[in-house]
């Protein structure tokens, strides 16, 4: 019930802001001019950059920038055509559609072979192979249009978060403590206890603090009790975390690198994409017996490590024995990204294989300039969702009317039945202690 109402509220708010903003049919001429300039600028940039990108397939991954230009161009064309872009971007319908679309595209990505795997699959011989490849279906998650959809989701999310901020701010920091009697009686859950008076108020307050509600007495005799006040902020933190992780991923894709490096024992190799060299002094494997019913039935490698030293311009930077889950992290100076100065390059022990000239250690060497944002996002995501779902916002208002009735009313944003139980416990305690029947409403 309460959620139905809030859903309605979101919808009606949308239409209000939209119609208040501008006349519902068509743009004013200044808007048209604005959108026209926007469309031309974006379109030109997009076309020129795309041309440049596809002509010289440089190592710099510009798809992220191109996809952003694509989606901005489309949105501004919509604006030029008289669509209410702001309205479109704040709609929950768009959000749901996007979630659905992304899920479907992800399924396609797990169904068709992705990346290099396609070259060894039967798909190469398929007559539609070139069409599929051009559509990016063999590289769904890095394709320009997939990224464009992610951008649309990110815009949608940012607009929604922005729109919700004032409401959440009010709910969290400016709670409505002083309310009218009518407000209480109109709550989704409401009850009136006749003749309870101030005595009933005392009992109710005690009962509510027993249920760990936080009591806030108002100026005009009404009292508000609440629980889970930070639920709304937590929800915003959770949604914000997608943006942080997205920005971090973008930084990583555009400015980071990820290379597979193979080194035999005693060999020194260049790490592509950096000015680093790495030496493998010693490679060790530890085997452990596989036991079944008390007997050894073979053995399995359970630990392998490379004694690795990393050099920059002939100077040793660091030496460490790296293991799986135990990488070497080196701070370097990357000339391209002077403004980010010290960025860590990580050397991970990935695997090894036997070649005819000895064991080759396979390392995964990478650098992720967005990692700190991503980890911040991870923790906001985990904390945000736990607080928002495990501690839902519950509010109960109390007031003694002129005719000595105790008015009780409350609402929650989720888990209605559970809240109802709190509410019933409160009213039944009141009833028992006051020794009388109450008139149930709602």
């Amino acid at each position, binding site marked *: 019930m309460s*959620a139905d109402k809030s859903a*309605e509220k979101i919808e009606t708010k949308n239409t209000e802001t939209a119609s208040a903003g501008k006349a519902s049919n068509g743009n004013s001429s200044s808007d048209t001019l604005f959108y026209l300039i926007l469309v031309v600028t974006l379109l030109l940039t997009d076309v020129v950059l795309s041309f440049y990108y596809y002509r010289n397939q440089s190592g710099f991954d510009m798809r992220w920038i191109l996809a952003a230009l694509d989606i901005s161009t489309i949105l501004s064309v919509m604006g030029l055509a008289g669509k209410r872009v702001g309205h479109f971007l704040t709609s929950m319908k768009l959000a749901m559609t996007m979630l659905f679309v992304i899920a479907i595209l992800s399924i396609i990505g797990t169904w068709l072979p992705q990346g290099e795997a396609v070259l060894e699959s039967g798909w190469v011989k398929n007559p539609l192979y070139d069409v599929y490849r051009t559509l990016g279906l063999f590289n769904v998650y890095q394709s320009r249009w997939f990224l464009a959809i992610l951008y649309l989701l990110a815009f949608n999310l940012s607009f929604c978060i922005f729109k919700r901020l004032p409401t959440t701010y009010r709910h969290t920091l400016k709670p409505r403590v002083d309310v009218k009697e009518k407000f209480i009686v109109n709550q989704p859950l409401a009850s009136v206890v006749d003749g309870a008076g101030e005595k009933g108020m005392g009992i109710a307050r005690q009962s509510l603090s027993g249920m760990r509600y936080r009591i806030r007495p108002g100026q005009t005799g009404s009292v508000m009790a609440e629980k889970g006040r930070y639920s709304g902020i937590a929800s915003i933190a959770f949604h914000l975390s997608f943006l942080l992780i997205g920005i971090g991923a973008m930084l990583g894709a555009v400015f980071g690198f990820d290379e597979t490096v193979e080194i035999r024992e005693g060999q020194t190799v260049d790490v592509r994409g950096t000015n680093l060299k790495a030496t493998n002094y010693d490679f060790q494997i530890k085997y452990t*017996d*596989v036991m079944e019913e008390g007997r050894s039935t073979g053995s399995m490698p359970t630990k392998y490590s490379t004694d690795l030293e990393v050099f920059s311009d002939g100077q040793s930077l660091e030496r460490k024995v790296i*293991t*799986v889950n135990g990488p070497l992290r080196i701070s370097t100076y990357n000339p391209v990204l002077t403004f980010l100065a010290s960025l860590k390059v990580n050397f991970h022990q990935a695997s090894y294989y036997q070649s005819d000239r000895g064991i080759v250690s396979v390392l995964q060497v990478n650098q992720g300039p967005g990692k700190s944002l991503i980890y911040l996002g991870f923790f906001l995501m985990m904390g945000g969702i736990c607080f928002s779902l495990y501690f839902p916002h519950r509010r109960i208002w109390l007031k003694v009317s002129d005719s000595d009735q105790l008015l009780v009313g409350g609402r929650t944003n989720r888990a209605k039945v559970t809240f109802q139980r709190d509410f019933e416990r409160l009213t039944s305690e009141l009833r028992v202690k006051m020794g009388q029947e109450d008139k149930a409403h709602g």
Partner: protein
Amino acid sequence: MGNIFSHDLLTRYEEILFIVAVISYLVCSGIFIWYLISRNEKAAQLGTILLTMGLVAHTVALALRWGTSGHAPMSNTYESLSLFGWGIVLFFLIAQRFYPIRAAGALVVPTAFLITSVAGVFYQGPDIPLAPALQSIWLWIHVTIAMLSYGLFALAFGAGFLYIIQENLLKKNYKGVVTAFTLLFAALGLVLGLWIGSMLAEPVTVQDPITRTVGNDYSFSDYFRIFGGGFIGLVVLLGLGYFAGRGASKRSFSNILPSLDVLDEVSYRGVAFGFPLLTIGIVTGAIWADQAWGRWWGWDPKETWSFITWLFYGGYLHTRLTMGWRGKHSAILAVVGLIVVLITYLGVNFFFSGLHSYATG
């Protein structure tokens, strides 16, 4: 040796306790189904007590496994399925303390029995060493929490399914009841059959000469086992579902089931409690991958499907909160959700191979 705490004896205790737990789930399945038919409150009480004892035995078995193997119980099919079943029973016992849903035991407990007995089929001793990549604390947080979230989604599914049944019963739409039972059983039969078939298949492990990724090469007889298993599972459970549906198509059956409000709330709370756990599970998995390979997300099939599962339940919560969906629509989503979970958990290992495929053996 004589030491009652020796490694081998502890392994034996674990085996025995696990078997005790599975047997108690079997007996409790019978009791809860009997409760549904007879509405004998004593039966439900007895079932709850026995189930709690079974859970205790199961808990000790898991703890022993942790001790003897030296890592959290999550490294092979036996351990992770056992944990999945444990989660289902645990959350059912918790839920029935707060909501009048003991009748749902007739659906939930047999599911737990099925899952744990399949775990038993794939029993593996504790002395299989862990591959190096799996030796990480993030990994066990990742798997344990993900399994617990699956347990909650299974609970949400059970309550959602009963919601659909109850609603049809109240409307006297017995055709709907039979259809729901048949469809559900057939789908479960297909998934389980495919999965068991794929476990019986013996694909040749091949390593790609260029990328050196390891994959499976299936022969014709392997496909025969896999799809044969799927077909047999489908047919057997389809028939079973039809008769179960016929049996349930009684008016008195509706009185035994919890009310629509309670079923809706339990289903919702299952998702609402499971979703944050799933989120933590996925994030800790990403952190683990970042520690091991320096790449936190690689769109491998398992990752992608867990992402899809996450989007799906995120969508479920959205439809409730912002579109006001309740009741039947939500129940259908909760039912479909478990199918998505099963694809993520079982299907991906079979259909695709990636970094994760060796994690569950």
